[in-house]
């Protein structure tokens, strides 16, 4: 095990054994087979000490994704990762503001053209780009300008990956995902509302270790974390197989921890790692605390027909809204007319969650 990085770590008093342990936990975090630990150690040890630059752009979002990453409960690993990258621009976390902040972004883009990693959270308004701007630059222009020199683009959170809540019916801002707009670069999606912190960190670690994005599924998500459904990895799955379901949130079945399928759990159609990675430092996760999965890492989860409706229950087709959506491409004044049409269509097809839904 030789190379610039391990040499500099050894000089800082880190033993090779500590480093090997770190790589073993990193492999586990990245959902790689444990045998990958020693191989990763060799790859990382040989990495250059120059930290890869990262530019992080936040568009139509709630900052929950950044909160998720920074409130992570395993500081050692995330800190080591941030010691390994150079976060050149992140307008929530950086100390600089105003012109100095924008200059930092432009300087990093010029100095590292073709090499930096671009991370985006939030969706991009396209109906009128003035809906969301930073330093007078529209989200759309900033994304296109910054993406030009990026080695790869990572869309963090369901808004950046699929449009998310801004994209929810009737989508007044014409919100689009990063993948809708960037077509000439590798784009990886890390959806979730927010995504699991170790998943964000694990994917970054993969890029740093191997210099490439991990294997992706058909929705651009890393297979290591999104390869299986919540349902397939759920500890309550055996109850589903036995036909034991909670019928209400306070019945005997709920108390015994039976399957939440009939209470609207979207686990069977949701791909994410919550069931095994869990949340808050492995404390718990939604199903473990007695509530079904909302399906937040899937496209259009907000419009999937009610969080408390069982998957087997038919959802009324939102035909009027779909028809109006086809008009959305028209520019200028027509857009606002179309949006108004979409909005009234959405009001007509709106399906409120009633008390009966909750008391099923």
């Amino acid at each position, binding site marked *: *095990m*030789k190379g610039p990085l391990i040499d500099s770590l*050894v000089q800082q008093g*880190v*033993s*090779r*054994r*500590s480093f*090997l*342990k*770190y790589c*073993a*936990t990193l*492999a*586990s*975090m990245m*959902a790689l*087979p*444990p*045998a990958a630990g*020693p191989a990763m150690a060799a790859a990382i040890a040989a990495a250059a000490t120059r930290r890869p630059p990262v530019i992080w752009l936040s568009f139509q979002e709630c900052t929950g994704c950044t909160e998720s990453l920074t409130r992570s*409960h*395993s*500081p*050692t*690993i995330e800190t080591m990762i941030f010691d390994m990258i150079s976060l050149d621009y992140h307008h929530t976390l950086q100390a600089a503001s105003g012109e100095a902040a924008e200059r930092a972004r432009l300087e990093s883009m010029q100095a590292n053209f073709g090499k930096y990693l671009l991370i985006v959270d939030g969706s991009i308004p396209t109906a009128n780009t003035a809906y969301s701007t930073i330093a007078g630059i529209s989200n759309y222009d900033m994304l296109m300008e910054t993406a030009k020199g990026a080695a790869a683009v990572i869309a963090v959170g369901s808004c950046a990956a699929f449009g998310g809540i801004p994209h929810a019916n009737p989508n007044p801002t014409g919100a689009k995902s990063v993948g809708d707009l960037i077509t000439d670069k590798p784009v990886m999606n890390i959806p979730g509302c927010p995504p699991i912190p170790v998943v964000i960190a694990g994917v970054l670690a993969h890029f740093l270790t191997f210099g490439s994005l991990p294997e992706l599924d058909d929705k651009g998500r890393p297979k290591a974390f999104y390869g299986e459904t919540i349902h397939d*990895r*759920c*500890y309550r*799955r*055996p109850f589903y197989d036995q036909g034991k379901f909670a019928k209400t949130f306070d019945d005997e079945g709920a*108390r*015994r*921890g039976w399957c939440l399928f009939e209470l609207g759990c979207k686990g069977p159609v949701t791909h994410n790692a919550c*069931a*095994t*990675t869990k949340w808050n*430092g*492995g404390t718990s996760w939604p199903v473990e605390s007695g509530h079904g999965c909302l399906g937040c890492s899937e496209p259009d989860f907000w419009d999937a027909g009610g969080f408390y409706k069982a998957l087997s229950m038919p959802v009324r087709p939102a035909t009027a809204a779909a028809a109006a959506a086809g008009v959305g491409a028209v520019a200028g004044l027509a857009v606002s007319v179309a949006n108004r049409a979409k909005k009234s269509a959405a009001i007509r097809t709106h399906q409120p969650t009633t008390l009966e839904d909750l008391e099923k």
Partner: protein
Amino acid sequence: MPLERIPVVAAAQWAVSGNARPLLHEIAAQLRRLLDAGEAASIDLSALPLNPADRDWLRERLGSGEVSITLDAEGESTLAETAFPGVWWVTHRNQRGDVLCELIEIAFVPYLVGAPRDDVATGLERLELALSEPNDEPGGRNP
């Protein structure tokens, strides 16, 4: 209604889901491979749908063996041999004591235990440097 009036009922105890049993078959297959081909393997427990009862069940089935190693490397790690020689229960913690990952390793000796060759070389340099310095101890003789 005041908060005290809300009755608090302790959640039901975890029940074994049956997800741990197949792991014993995997461990048996890996042990066979260790004997036949000398290939070590590990199973990452944090990637598997085990509830606390499943984990306790597995721990109980595997039991505890003769060797238990504590590693102090950026946080404590414990590598404990189970009642089945060659099967180790490995827990890595960070400096705050949080569990980072739990593994079952199938190996004659877990690979983290052996001293890395380069660390041995660095250690030897340090020792030789210490020996080359003047010996101040009573009765000591300088080289």
